């Protein structure tokens, strides 16, 4: 055991196993429960609604206003708060959600806004800011794991200036998270792999001595991580529909193409296996035309997947330590255009949060009657990020530095939303 650093989580697991193997003493368990309750979240799942979802047609309906469009607003578990009629499952568990209705951003262009919502900074040519998952991976540095800390289902914003070791493992095909994990038949097993790795390390060392700025160490580390990942089970192709058919259906496996159901169920598997940050890209929200049919379809997937993910994590005792966040790069115009669509609108939009020990069952901020401006408690993107970081146990006020020594705080002066934090 010498030199082995146990994480808090492992210690807790160890003590839990200890209490169970001996006669369970109630006061121990109570203490453990208390400790668990106070513990910060240590994993995060972000469902990114790529394209920019209409806030009015999802979490911030405007019944009676001209801008509302054809969707009805329905009651939720929070008194006096309504969601779109196409989010009934989320409405029914609104006490487990927190919805921010007063996000405001300066970026109305997809690329720039996607970058802002991921990094918390407006894009700049002088510094490639890291995305949320990479920033967190760096904070979690030293967490030993066979699985990557940061997994993205679909492309995301990478590590930027933090460097490749904090980059995501990107999954393009959710049905087959990582291709070619198994060694071919007759390969010769791990012994042959070890021999290759040893020779590679030596070969890389001699190159590093000649070319110190070539990032050789990053290459070596990435190869070693690839090897560890190859041995883990969780990235092997798995037919979720067949292994957990009932649950899969609840996640919305039969709604549309079932992509989001699969992605969210995979995300749960990943978190259980020790992945700390999972991002899921869920696109299609750029509804310049035919907004209402499209949003209705997308909402069907979103409603089932998120509501079931929250319930599923809850059933497994993982909800308190798993933070869930769902947002896109901006909202959409209150005005309905000639193509029955809505256009980009960063002036006011919504985000949904759940789990992670947040104080849920509340709405933060308010947009005006038509959904065209923030009316109360403007939340900037860095504030949203500061809230996520704080819930994950990080101090956003501390000065942090990029690898090249430049000041790079976790957020651009973001203030955590205190009402949400326990």
């Amino acid at each position: 055991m010498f030199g082995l650093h146990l994480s808090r989580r492992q210690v807790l697991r160890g003590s839990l196993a200890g209490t169970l193997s001996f006669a369970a003493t109630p006061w121990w368990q109570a203490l453990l429960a208390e400790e668990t309750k106070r513990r910060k979240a240590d994993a995060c799942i972000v469902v990114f609604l790529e394209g920019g979802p209409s806030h009015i047609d999802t979490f911030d309906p405007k019944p009676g206003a001209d801008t509302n469009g054809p969707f009805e607003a329905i009651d939720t578990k929070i008194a006096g708060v309504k969601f779109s009629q196409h989010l009934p499952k989320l409405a029914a568990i609104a006490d487990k959600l927190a919805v921010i209705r007063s996000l405001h951003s300066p970026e109305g262009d997809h690329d720039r806004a996607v970058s802002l919502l991921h990094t918390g900074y407006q894009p700049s040519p002088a510094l490639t800011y890291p995305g949320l998952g990479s920033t967190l991976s760096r904070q979690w540095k030293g967490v030993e794991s066979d699985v990557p800390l940061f997994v993205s289902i679909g492309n995301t914003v990478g590590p930027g200036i933090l460097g490749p070791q904090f980059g995501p493992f990107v999954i393009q095909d959710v049905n087959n998270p990582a291709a070619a994990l198994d060694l071919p038949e007759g390969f010769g097993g791990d012994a042959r792999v070890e021999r290759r790795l040893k020779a590679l390390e030596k070969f890389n060392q001699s190159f590093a001595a000649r070319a110190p700025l070539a990032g050789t160490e990053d290459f070596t580390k990435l190869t070693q991580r690839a090897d560890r990942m190859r041995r883990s089970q969780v990235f092997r192709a798995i037919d979720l529909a067949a292994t957990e058919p009932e649950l899969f259906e609840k996640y919305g496996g039969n709604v549309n193409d079932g992509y989001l159901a699969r992605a969210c169920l995979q995300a749960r598997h990943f978190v259980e296996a020790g992945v700390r940050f999972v991002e899921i890209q869920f696109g299609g929200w750029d509804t310049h035309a035919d907004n209402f049919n499209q949003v209705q379809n997308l909402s069907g997937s979103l409603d089932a997947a998120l509501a079931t993910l929250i319930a599923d994590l809850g059933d497994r005792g993982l909800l308190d330590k798993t933070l869930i966040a769902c947002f896109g790069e901006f909202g959409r115009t209150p005005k309905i255009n000639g193509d029955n669509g809505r256009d980009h609108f960063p002036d006011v939009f919504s985000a949904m949060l759940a789990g992670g020990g947040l104080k849920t069952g509340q709405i933060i901020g308010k947009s005006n009657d038509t959904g065209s401006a923030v009316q109360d408690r403007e939340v900037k993107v860095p504030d949203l990020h500061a809230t996520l970081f704080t819930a994950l146990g990080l101090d956003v006020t501390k000065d942090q530095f990029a690898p090249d020594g430049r000041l790079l705080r976790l957020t651009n002066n973001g203030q955590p939303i205190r009402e949400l934090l326990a």
Partner: protein
Amino acid sequence: MSSAIILALGLLVMPELEQSGPSSDAANAARKLDTRVTDGWESEKDKVQPASACDDATFLRRAWLDLAGRVPPFAEADKLAKSGKPLDRAAVIEELLDSPEFAAYWSRHWAEYLLGQRPFDQPEFSGRKLQQFLRESLKANRHYDQIATDLISAEGAMDESGAVNFLLRYNADAKQLAGAVSQKFLGLTLQCAECHDHPHAAWKQSEFWGLSAFFARLRRMNPANPQPNEQFAAVLERPRGEFLVIDKKGKPDEQGNFPTRTVMPQFPGSVRREIAPARRDALSAWLTSPENPYFAKHFVNQVWSRLIGAPLVLSFDPVLPSAKKGDLQPATLSAAGENRNAAILENLRADFVASSFDIRRLVTVITLCETYQRASSSHREGDSPATDSELRHEQDLFARGRTRPLSADQVHLSIGQAFGFFQDDGDHRLAQLTDEEFTYDVPVNSFGSEPQSLGRSLALFNGEHIRGAVDVAAQSLLRIHGDAAGPAHLQRLFLCLLSRMPTDAELEAILDLAGDDIPQRGLEDVTWVILNSAEFQTNH
């Protein structure tokens, strides 16, 4: 492998190249450019110790990777290793620029830049046709202003005009094209001004609209009854039609809708309205004029960045004075650094304009430079070895070469060059029919788009492409050099992938690994080690 042999034969019958005329003129221009680089070092506190020139083998590999997107063929590396004579670097550059590989590789990444996405072929446009247009243009050494003019003034059907696919990529839509043209040809982010005059943005909405109006008469045409799998679209320019915007200052009608207002074409940064009948001709004339402050500058900055590994100027957008005090501002170059780089950029721009936008000459001048040819390794004449931060500082001054990770295309093409292995042979043959190197996106599918990522490492570790490549490599080494793995096998492997001979120490260490009871397995292991090494995965 066959194309490598053909190329090598081609080189043998080439006539001796004259060392006068255009190439010596380019050499003079390269010397001038080097002087601009070294001039900047005078303002440095400490004496700058530039890296010496990289060795010939490194240069050969660097030039091939940069210009042809792949490592040099074995025959070239072998010839150099055996010759004992210094390499004629200017001749290497000239031959590469004349090669079909240069046109294929540069047109591919240029198309990727203009389209902003991969894979190239989408239902709405044919990126392949665009790439073919760029490839043929590069082959014929058409100049940059002509190519840009073609792209902006294109018209016709997607399968007949390659250039029109640039317009189709942006839906032949006035506003999207204004954003794309300013970004791709001028390096400016005008599209931020689409929604409103933004306090933090340098451009006015009226300027964005004025640029949009040049494209107001374009129409994207689709077939009335599209057939399944049919890919067709065309761009036409109508004789009339104006760019209309919603006038929020006007008086709304009874339904609350604001009136519209016509915006006439207007060049960004100018107050003059353009009323020429051929709007896009007027735009491309303005764009490609030698007086345009950004057109040439943006292009040479990009080419420099591609070849040297870092741009001279990070952004051409005017500096924003509006940033609030206390906002975290990213550090930029020092004022001295900016002046230094501006002088290099101006020198390059002037030379490019004077050559009437000759792309090949631009590439020749940069690659002939000492700056391009400097070593990236840490070796320093004399005393103590440099620290990492000293080396980094030298790179910022362009006094030392930069190491750059290979793109997916470079990995794919290099493995193809080395072993004749392309993973999807069916695709490779299909592609050859259209004179392309791949039709489907084999490189990205096999190796992932991000260099230095877990996905790339996993692919190189155990991906099918790599399994196939090490198998083929081991087989062909055994066929050529006999059944027992020995130095000859390894020397060939090193020359194929790293363009250099192994050192004695490497030979000993690697022979140990290669000495498996089964020679095929031993050589597979060695090939695997090299393909997974930092040395193979970088251009250094």
